[in-house]
């Protein structure tokens, strides 16, 4: 299973096909059922997060089986996986549902249209009987269900540590928590919300390092940091890519262009002493070194602030002992966590210059003056691990506190967060959570997608038990989930969603559903008519008139992919987040555009509710008809409440980079010609143009509307908000400095109104709030698209 090719898994598939074919022959399958029943179209991936009560294991409906059968066999090399196979006589798409007595219903992704459908089922507990059912959608969108098949999983590897969940609250993000034991272990593990193992990866040919690390890439892929190797795998354990490293020390980042930033060490002789420092190298996929950074060229080789920096291993002084990298594409900078120096450095990826240093400035040389922050509150970290930027631009750190004034062996280790102001060079400790133990080595902290923080106090210290704890991000924090792993040292812990876990069950990771005719299912989804087929480069806006698309200039990963499908209740939009218009370099860091895969679920046919619900502070509130995300009317300055339109570098399309998102009306849709020769992507000054769907399901219209039901004329729709500030946009909270005045326009406080045809819609106005200020419709799916939504 862990060979560097997919051949083994293909063999598994073949074995399963043979098994299924035998079943057909023995059972005389192939006759048509006389009692087929049409049922609702089954949605694309919906994965129960485990918190619901749905346990649909029984075959208690009388839906007859179509002329297709389901077979389920255990995976030949992994006791917690199974192979489910379905062969259909006609082209169809298939989803596998599975559940057990004590676990909620889970679904795989839908297979591609075809006759042979093979799934690798992951996410099952050990020694547990599971029920499986295939949901088959034929090419006429008729849906059938197979009979239930059962399969009982096998044992876990014998060396699996004992785990126990101490806390599990409703406001935990949920999902699977991954980790690996250090020191000689050969297995990576994943446990579910209840602390049951549901995933493992074991193999004698895995070149485990002394501190093996599994990192989530956020899209269903996992990155294993091994001895002089990095493997990118899917959750089936299939190796998608491997990198050989010349050397490796503790951390690797995968860049969006496929290159790796690798943290390594190097040794130099200074003042007759062997000094061990850090080297960061950037490798391309062929292993060529494209860029490197040496601590000996950029850091003070005479600073040895404590015991860790003076520690001698193999005759080498452990001067820096860096242990974490965090690449920030927004600024094209790298955070480097130096444990021995108790510093986090910010490094310019272009020049290698150290831009600033977070940490204590004691015993520094003159050449560093001006690089440090004045800490106005709290205390600096010491001997830390795992520095990262949060979504809000703060820095989150696992603070071991070996050499802190508040020593960890007395006060325990902690997770700590700093807010920094790089103009004033000031910092504030704005949050901390004291871990239940002192971790003298190892440790990790991650910001989760709902804002909660996952902490791994995993090293040896005051006890040998690792604590993996999810807490809320405010002060005082609430523990939402806590797992202990007995007598085990764990370097890092990662959390992924069930949806991501299932993403590799069938087909390719990050590949949107691929309908045979068009990815935009106009025939069966009325909303799809409003979407723009950005898969077609004719619909590309060539702002700079050079005849090139972003993909032409930056690679095929920048080709937009968009798919739109529906069921009765939900509109499904998947997109890779690549823009169908030219990227403009606003000097904000990364010299190339980026993408972000999104799978949107939006309610159909929404009704107005009696309440107005606040939109989330940050993150998406809607998706455009080109599959790009729309954020609310505040961000960045003024504690993220500033108006990004008046205080933001938005480009000609009303949005900005770092996973492109709009704040302002997507003006470029109406102003610029396309490569296909259209005057504009969407018609300007035309009524009834849907340019987005809000996450509550209501459309967001372009700001032109019929004056009456017969549309005798078209009028411009303006916001009812009035700016009442002084022009100090950086420091003004946009919500406080815009006042709703009902007489300014027909729009309500959410920026919507009843259209002349009686339906409700929001409007993309020229002025604040640009798209919408609150939800007027159902919000039950909003948090699926933006975990920060907290009504």
């Amino acid at each position, binding site marked *: 299973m862990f060979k560097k090719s997919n051949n083994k898994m293909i063999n598994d598939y073949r074995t399963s096909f043979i098994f299924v074919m035998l079943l057909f022959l023995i059972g005389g399958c192939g006759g048509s059922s006389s009692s087929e029943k049409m049922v609702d179209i089954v949605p694309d991936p919906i994965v129960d997060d485990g918190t619901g009560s749905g346990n649909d294991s029984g075959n208690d409906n009388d839906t007859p089986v179509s002329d297709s059968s389901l077979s389920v066999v255990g995976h030949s090399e992994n006791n917690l996986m199974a192979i489910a196979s379905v062969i259909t006589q006609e082209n169809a798409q298939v989803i596998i549902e599975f559940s057990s007595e004590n676990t909620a219903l889970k679904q795989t992704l839908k297979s591609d249209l075809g006759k042979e459908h093979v799934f690798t089922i992951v996410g099952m507990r050990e020694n547990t009987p599971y029920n499986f059912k295939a949901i088959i959608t034929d090419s006429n969108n008729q849906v059938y269900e197979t009979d239930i098949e059962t399969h009982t999983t096998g044992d876990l590897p014998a060396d699996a540590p004992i785990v126990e969940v101490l806390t599990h609250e409703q406001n935990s993000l949920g999902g699977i928590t991954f980790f690996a034991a250090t020191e000689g272990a050969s297995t990576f593990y994943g446990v579910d919300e209840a602390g049951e193992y549901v995933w493992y990866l074991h193999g004698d040919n895995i070149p485990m390092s002394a501190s093996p690390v599994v990192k989530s890439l956020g899209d269903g892929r996992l990155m294993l940091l091994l001895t002089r190797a990095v493997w990118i795998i899917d959750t089936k354990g299939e190796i998608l890519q491997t990198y050989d490293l010349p050397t490796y020390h503790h951390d690797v980042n995968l860049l969006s262009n496929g290159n790796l930033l690798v943290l390594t060490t190097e040794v130099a002789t200074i003042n007759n002493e062997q000094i061990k420092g850090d080297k960061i190298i950037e490798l391309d996929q062929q292993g060529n070194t494209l860029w490197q950074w040496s601590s000996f060229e950029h850091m003070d080789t005479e600073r040895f602030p404590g015991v860790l920096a003076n520690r001698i291993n193999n005759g080498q002084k452990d001067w820096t002992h860096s242990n974490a990298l965090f690449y920030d594409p927004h600024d094209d900078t790298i955070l480097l966590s130096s444990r021995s120096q108790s510093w986090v450095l910010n490094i310019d990826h272009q020049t290698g210059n150290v831009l600033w240093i977070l940490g204590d400035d004691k015993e520094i040389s003159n050449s560093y003056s001006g690089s440090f922050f004045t800490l106005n509150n709290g205390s600096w970290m010491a001997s830390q691990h795992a520095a990262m930027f949060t979504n809000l631009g703060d820095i989150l750190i696992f603070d071991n506190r070996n050499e802190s004034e508040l020593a960890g062996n007395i006060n325990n280790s902690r997770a700590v967060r700093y807010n920094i102001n790089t103009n004033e060079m000031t910092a504030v400790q704005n949050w901390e959570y004291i871990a239940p133990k002192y971790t003298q080595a190892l440790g990790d902290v991650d910001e989760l997608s709902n804002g909660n923080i996952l902490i791994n106090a995993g090293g040896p210290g005051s006890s040998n038990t690792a604590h993996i704890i999810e807490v809320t991000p405010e002060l005082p924090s609430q523990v939402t989930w806590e797992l202990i792993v007995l007598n085990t040292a764990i370097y890092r812990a990662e959390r992924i969603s069930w949806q991501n876990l299932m993403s590799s069950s069938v087909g390719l990771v990050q590949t949107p559903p691929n309908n045979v005719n068009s990815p935009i299912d106009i025939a069966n989804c009325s909303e799809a008519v409003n979407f723009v087929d950005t898969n077609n480069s004719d619909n590309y806006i060539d702002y700079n008139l050079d005849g090139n698309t972003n993909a032409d200039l930056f690679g095929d990963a920048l080709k937009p992919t968009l798919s739109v499908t529906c069921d009765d209740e939900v509109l499904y939009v998947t997109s890779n987040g690549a823009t169908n218009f030219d990227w403009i370099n606003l000097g904000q860091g990364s010299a190339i555009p980026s993408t972000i895969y999104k799978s949107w679920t939006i309610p159909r046919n929404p009704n107005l509710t009696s309440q107005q619900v606040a939109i989330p502070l940050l993150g998406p509130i809607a998706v455009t008809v080109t599959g790009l995300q729309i954020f609310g009317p505040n961000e960045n300055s003024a504690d993220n409440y500033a108006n990004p339109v008046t205080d933001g570098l938005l480009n*000609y399309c009303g949005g900005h980079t770092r996973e492109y998102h709009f704040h302002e009306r997507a003006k470029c849709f109406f102003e610029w010609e396309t490569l296909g020769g259209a005057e504009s992507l969407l018609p300007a000054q035309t009524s009834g143009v849907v340019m987005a769907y809000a996450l509550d399901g209501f459309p967001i219209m372009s700001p032109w509307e019929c004056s009456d039901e017969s549309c005798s004329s078209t009028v411009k729709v303006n916001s009812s908000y009035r700016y009442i500030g002084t022009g100090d946009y950086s420091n003004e909270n946009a919500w406080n400095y815009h006042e709703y005045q009902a007489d300014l326009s027909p729009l309500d406080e959410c920026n919507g109104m009843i259209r002349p045809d009686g339906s409700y819609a929001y409007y993309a106005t020229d002025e604040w709030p640009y798209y919408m200020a609150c939800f007027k419709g159902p919000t039950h799916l909003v948090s699926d698209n933006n975990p920060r939504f907290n009504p």
Partner: protein
Amino acid sequence: MNIKILKNTWLKLSFVWLLLIKSSLVLAHSDDFTRVEVKLQIPALDNKLTAQNGDLINLTQAYLSSFSFELIACPQINLKPVNNDKVNLLSWLIPAAHANHGVSFTKPTQIPVQQRHNLLVKTDIYLGIYKLPKGKYCQMNYTLGKVPDNQGLSSEITKSSLFIAGKQFELNIGTSHIIAKSDYAFGKNFPINLEIPASHKPLSLVISINVSEALKIITHSVPSHKNGRLVLLSLSEQVTLELML
């Protein structure tokens, strides 16, 4: 003069002296950097503009909003930590930035401007003294963006990064109309050939923008936003650098 005043004066003088010494020491250690005074010059536009189609336009209003410049080192450059004079010792010399647009000017070669230029009068702005890493620079980024109003201008202008209004010359009557306009940020990297040498005395770098050349691409009959795009796309070709040793 009583003793107390003498003491205070002496203390103040000592403090200034210490500051100067500190500053000299820092600079003396900064062999990898050269202090460079940076100026931005934009010659005033002639208010009679000849459009690409030959139309003569009498310009009535012309504004351009610069957000920042950035020098981009040739790939070989790899330098030690930098302390930007602008951020630290000499920050008081720099005009206060009114908006940060979520951007932190933390790179040593970023040069904030954040000013709106009236193109009908000569622009000659002192942007400050920067400690620039010595070496070769192969590209520059010029970014335009909206900047807050400090001149009492109309909101139509203050919401723009480029705003050009005028009248057809032959019909120099009635109200002027907008000829070229952009209400968004725009940036572009363009090639330069600049070497910052080692120097113990400050150098002078003048960034000049010949906007009038960029405006020649305007066609009077074209919608203002399309003229605006053409001007922005061609503006970087009109940026020149002059380093005076």
